[in-house]
């Protein structure tokens, strides 16, 4: 028997070790060692047994285990000791020696971590040492908290729709106590009834209790780890006492919560009342009769009701508990003290009539009904607005309009004489807003141009009657000094507050607080004792309001105090747009103020940002200026500029604007001009002086002395010629040679020598076409400055520096220098030079004196054309060519024309259309 018991202990130990291996892996080496020892012990048998083997212990309690020595006398209880884990020895004071072969230990379970508890023998005998594994045993202590207890149980049974049944009782509860992660407490809801007054204790004390504890019905929910459960009744236990509790269960056992013992109707929540009807009685404009039906017959539950009602749209509910009669249940009620002509929203709910039992049902569906109208019992709220020199009479409906206002009666009195009454029909809203939120109605516009004031009296009219009159003295301009001082506007919690100081002297009867924005006006009235109030109208954030406080003295409007205010300020929605006027070192910026609706707050300052080559700078300027001069800029540089407008809530960025500073400052331009002018003057002066002082040298270098051929004696060899031939007259100025000979100049003497001249043409082949400044006939060294027409383009390109005065293209006849019997046809092309004309060209009149150059005068215009006007020149050329057919002619031909008939002359013109320049045949006399 004992061996069987030992075997049982061993198996349980192995099982516990294997189970611990799953649960606790941190102390793996110990587990492995223990398992090895266990197998060893299994092979040879252990001499120590621990009781109990139950491994679940409750945290916070003391646990006692006993180690028993079996089947050996080798060790006694004195040789035993206890270890918590393998190394931590339990102190001796926790031991209790039961007998020689049994040692108990009692240890407190404090920590939450599970652990091993070992019993070992420490005798140093050879047998013990050799069978060490047989002299040890252990148990795995699984530590748990007791199950959590349910408290504060609350239950509710909701009525099934349209049935006198509450099929489900749902309960919730709170829990107290601790719980480890390894274990979860499950809860079971228990409901039993009927519950008798006497309990078991009464029965035990000797009272006859047969059958008293036999409860008829018990309902149990399924176990749940959550804090709520429900039970279902086949038939709800009306008029029964219920006993409700919750059983908590864990591995350490079960715990019952406190019992909740109440009548079943303590937990019911009925459906909402149905068929709610509101009856209007015309003879009672201030009351409405409400009727409804209870959701369940009073034989099940006796219910009480509650009504709530409010004006349509206000949601300001008023609650009325419906009193119950002793014997019957009240299902109707007359609401009183209502306002006539108003829509009322009415709802009803019900609950168990017994106090503190049952839950209120949901509210019934809303029923809206309007009370009958009555005569308006308060004055309309009359006010005015000045606009474009006229007064606009505006008003709000009376606070107690008692119906829909259909018209207003207005009486105006400019003098002491009573004015006529005027009825202005309106379409009253009949809405339920308070007087401060009622819409504003424009009644009439009146002009006060030639009147100091007007007294206006207005009464509101509805379908039943007329209201009392509201009167106001409206001045053309509010008179008197400002009687309200110390006005201040502040905001708090989304409301705007206006504060002011009451005037000492003025007898103010009331104040009118007016606020206006974007042409919309609203106002409210305050008593004369008020000096601070919240604006009751609907104000919008980020909108600037012009708030005024008007003192009213017996209906006379006095001068108000005004302030601008925002309910809430925000960052401007946009910044100002910038314009600029850049200079060299600076730029003037200006911008327009942000539109009022875009400011969204008071502008505290502007910040000007300007950027050049990714170098950003900014300047902050006050919010009341709209222009600024940026200085210290770089010249000829592009700047990007934008301006942000700031309020206390943020900033709004304006559109970026770019400008480029000037390339030169005005003073720089002036300096350059002055410098250049002075330099030019200096140059001219120096050149003049140089020419003046070095005249001979210059003359010598530029115009070397040419022997006068007229003075040569060689010319005297021919007997046909006089010894002294008149030298052609030259007009040579220093450095400049001006030919007096015109283009078509003809020296009459040459005609006489025409024949002899033709004989010498070969000799002067290179000189015969020379012309212009350097090629003029006054030069002693002839230069090839005149070319044939074939060479013209080349010369035009290659003689860019060579000033070509003219080119003379001779006809074949001319070029050949052969005197031909036929008239020579020479082609003269105009000069391409922009060289200033010689005096002879600029002053053809001078030329005309000695020649026939009258015909050549059109050429002046030809020579005044610039090179850039080539097209014009060409066209002129074409024109001129045509003209030259009439005005220019070779000398010979012209000479012939003097003798020929007109017809011949016409032939000659047609034969030589291109001859426009006279060959300089007579420039030099034959030497």
């Amino acid at each position, binding site marked *: 028997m004992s061996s069987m018991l030992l075997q049982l202990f061993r198996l349980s130990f192995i099982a516990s070790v294997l189970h611990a291996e799953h649960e606790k892996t941190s102390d793996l080496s110990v587990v492995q060692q223990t398992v090895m020892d266990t197998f060893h012990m299994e092979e040879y048998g252990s001499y120590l047994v621990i009781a109990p083997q139950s491994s679940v212990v409750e945290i916070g309690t003391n646990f006692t285990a006993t180690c028993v020595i079996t089947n050996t006398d080798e060790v006694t209880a004195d040789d035993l000791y206890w270890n918590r884990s393998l190394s931590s020895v339990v102190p001796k004071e926790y031991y209790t020696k039961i007998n020689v072969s049994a040692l108990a230990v009692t240890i407190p379970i404090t920590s939450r971590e599970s652990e091993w508890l070992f019993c070992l023998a420490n005798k140093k005998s050879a047998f013990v040492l050799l069978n060490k594994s047989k002299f040890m045993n252990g148990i795995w202590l699984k530590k748990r908290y007791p199950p959590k207890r349910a408290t504060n149980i609350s239950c509710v049974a909701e009525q099934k729709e349209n049935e006198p049944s509450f099929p489900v009782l749902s309960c919730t509860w709170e829990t107290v106590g601790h719980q480890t992660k390894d274990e979860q407490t499950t809860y079971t809801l228990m409901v039993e*009834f009927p519950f*008798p*007054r006497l309990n078991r204790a009464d029965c035990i004390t000797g*009272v006859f209790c047969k059958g008293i504890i036999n409860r008829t019905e018990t309902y149990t929910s399924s176990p749940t780890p959550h804090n709520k459960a429900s039970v279902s009744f086949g038939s709800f236990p009306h*008029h*029964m006492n219920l006993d409700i509790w919750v059983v908590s269960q864990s591995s350490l056992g079960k715990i019952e919560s406190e019992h909740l013992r109440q009548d079943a109707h303590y937990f019911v929540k009925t459906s909402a009342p149905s068929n709610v009807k509101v009856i209007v009685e015309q003879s009672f404009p201030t009351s409405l009769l409400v009727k409804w039906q209870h959701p369940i017959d009073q034989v099940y539950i006796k219910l009480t009701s509650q009504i709530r009602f409010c004006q349509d749209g206000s949601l300001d509910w008023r609650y009325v508990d419906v009193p119950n009669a002793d014997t019957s249940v009240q299902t109707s009620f007359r609401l009183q003290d209502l306002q006539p002509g108003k829509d009322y929203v009415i709802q009803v709910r019900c609950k168990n009539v017994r106090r503190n039992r049952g839950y209120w049902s949901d509210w019934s569906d809303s029923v809206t009904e309007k009370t009958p109208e009555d005569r308006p019992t308060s004055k309309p709220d009359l006010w005015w607005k000045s606009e474009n020199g006229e007064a606009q009479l505006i008003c709000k409906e009376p606070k107690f309009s008692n119906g829909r206002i259909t018209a207003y009666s207005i009486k105006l009195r400019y003098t002491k004489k009573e004015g006529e009454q005027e009825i202005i029909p309106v379409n009253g809203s009949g809405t339920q807003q308070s007087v401060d939120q009622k819409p504003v109605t424009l009644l009439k516009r009146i002009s006060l141009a030639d009147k100091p004031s007007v007294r206006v009296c207005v009464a509101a009219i509805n379908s039943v009657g007329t209201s009392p009159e509201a009167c106001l003295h409206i001045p053309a301009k509010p008179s008197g000094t400002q009687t309200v001082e110390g006005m201040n506007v502040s905001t708090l919690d989304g409301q705007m507050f206006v504060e002011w100081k009451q005037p000492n002297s003025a007898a103010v009867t009331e104040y009118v607080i007016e606020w206006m924005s974007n042409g919309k006006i609203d106002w409210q009235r305050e008593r004369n004792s008020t000096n601070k109030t919240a604006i009751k109208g609907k104000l919008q954030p980020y909108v600037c309001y012009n708030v005024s406080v008007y003192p009213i003295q017996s209906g006379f409007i006095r001068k108000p105090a005004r302030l601008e205010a925002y309910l809430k300020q925000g960052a401007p929605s946009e910044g100002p747009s910038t314009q600029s006027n850049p200079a060299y070192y600076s730029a003037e910026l200006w911008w327009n103020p942000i539109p009022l609706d875009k400011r969204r707050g008071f502008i505290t300052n502007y910040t000007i940002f300007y950027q050049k080559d990714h170098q950003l700078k900014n300047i902050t300027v006050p919010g009341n200026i709209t222009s600024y001069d940026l200085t210290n800029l770089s010249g000829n540089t592009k700047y990007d500029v934008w301006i942000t407008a700031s309020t206390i809530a943020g900033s709004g960025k304006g559109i970026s604007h770019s400008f480029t500073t000037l390339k030169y400052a005005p003073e720089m331009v002036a300096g350059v001009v002055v410098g250049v002018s002075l330099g030019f003057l200096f140059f001219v002066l120096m050149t003049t002086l140089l020419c003046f002082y070095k005249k001979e040298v210059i003359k010598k270098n530029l115009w070397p002395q040419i022997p006068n051929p007229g003075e040569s004696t060689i010319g005297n060899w021919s007997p046909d010629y006089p010894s002294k031939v008149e030298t052609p007259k030259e007009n040579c100025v220093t450095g400049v040679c001006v030919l007096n000979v015109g283009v078509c100049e003809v020296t009459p003497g040459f005609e006489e020598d025409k024949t002899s001249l033709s004989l010498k043409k070969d000799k002067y082949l290179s000189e015969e076409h020379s012309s212009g400044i350097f090629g003029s006939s006054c030069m002693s060294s002839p230069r090839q400055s005149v070319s044939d027409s074939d060479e013209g383009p080349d010369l035009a390109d290659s003689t860019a520096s060579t000033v070509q005065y003219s080119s003379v293209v001779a006809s074949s006849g001319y070029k050949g220098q052969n005197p031909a019997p036929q008239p020579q046809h020479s082609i003269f092309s105009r000069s391409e030079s922009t060289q200033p004309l010689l005096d002879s060209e600029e002053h053809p009149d001078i030329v005309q004196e000695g020649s026939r150059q009258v015909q050549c005068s059109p050429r002046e215009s030809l020579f005044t054309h610039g090179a850039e006007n080539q097209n014009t020149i060409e066209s002129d050329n074409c024109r001129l060519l045509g003209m030259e057919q009439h005005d220019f002619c070779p000398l010979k031909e012209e000479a012939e024309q003097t003798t020929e008939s007109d017809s011949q002359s016409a032939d000659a013109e047609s034969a030589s259309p291109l001859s426009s320049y006279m060959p300089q045949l007579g420039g030099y006399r034959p030497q």
Partner: protein
Amino acid sequence: MNGHVKSMNFQQRAETAATLLCFLLLLAVDSTKTVAAARNRECSSDLERTLRLTKLIHRQTGVLIKTYKAFQGEMGPGVCKATGFDVPDPNISGLEPSERMASMYTHLQAFSSHLKRVQEQQTDLQLPGSIVLRKINESRVQNKRLSSSINSLYHTFFPNLPLPEPAGGPTTLPPPQTVFQQKIYGCVVLTTYKVFLANMSKNVKTLKSKMCRKAPKSTSNSGR
């Protein structure tokens, strides 16, 4: 002198003790009154609840009879007042409250057996899930609850009096019947039951006025 002083001291102590005794007696009486008042409230509450339950079952039985008749087809007038089915007398007997409560309990037990028989018969006659069957079942459940309430009240008011067993032994049920007889039987049972419940309501109301007007008679009965 010394003896006189001692006598005075004794007299003073005696007066103090008497005052204290009177105070304690007053407290005891007051506490008794308080307990009696509390018990009175409980008594009233329990009987009131039982009264309401009785009225509720009476109302439900009335509805059940209408439904029953509607589902049985055409039955002649007055058939529900037939006799000969061993249906209990709806009248409550007894003079003392305990006897009347015992009679109520006994009647409820008897009607419970008859209702069970009617339910069995109607189960054969009606379709499953019929509203008649559901209402009969509901009536049985309520009958059981009312019996429990009377039982509880009885032991509350008369803790030392055992509930007597039915005088005639176990409830006698009718022998096997034809379908028509079953229908008549059911109607008779329900009608009689309703009359009994009406009588019971009156009796419970009377009990409430008698039992809860003063301290419960259980205190006087306890000496029996």
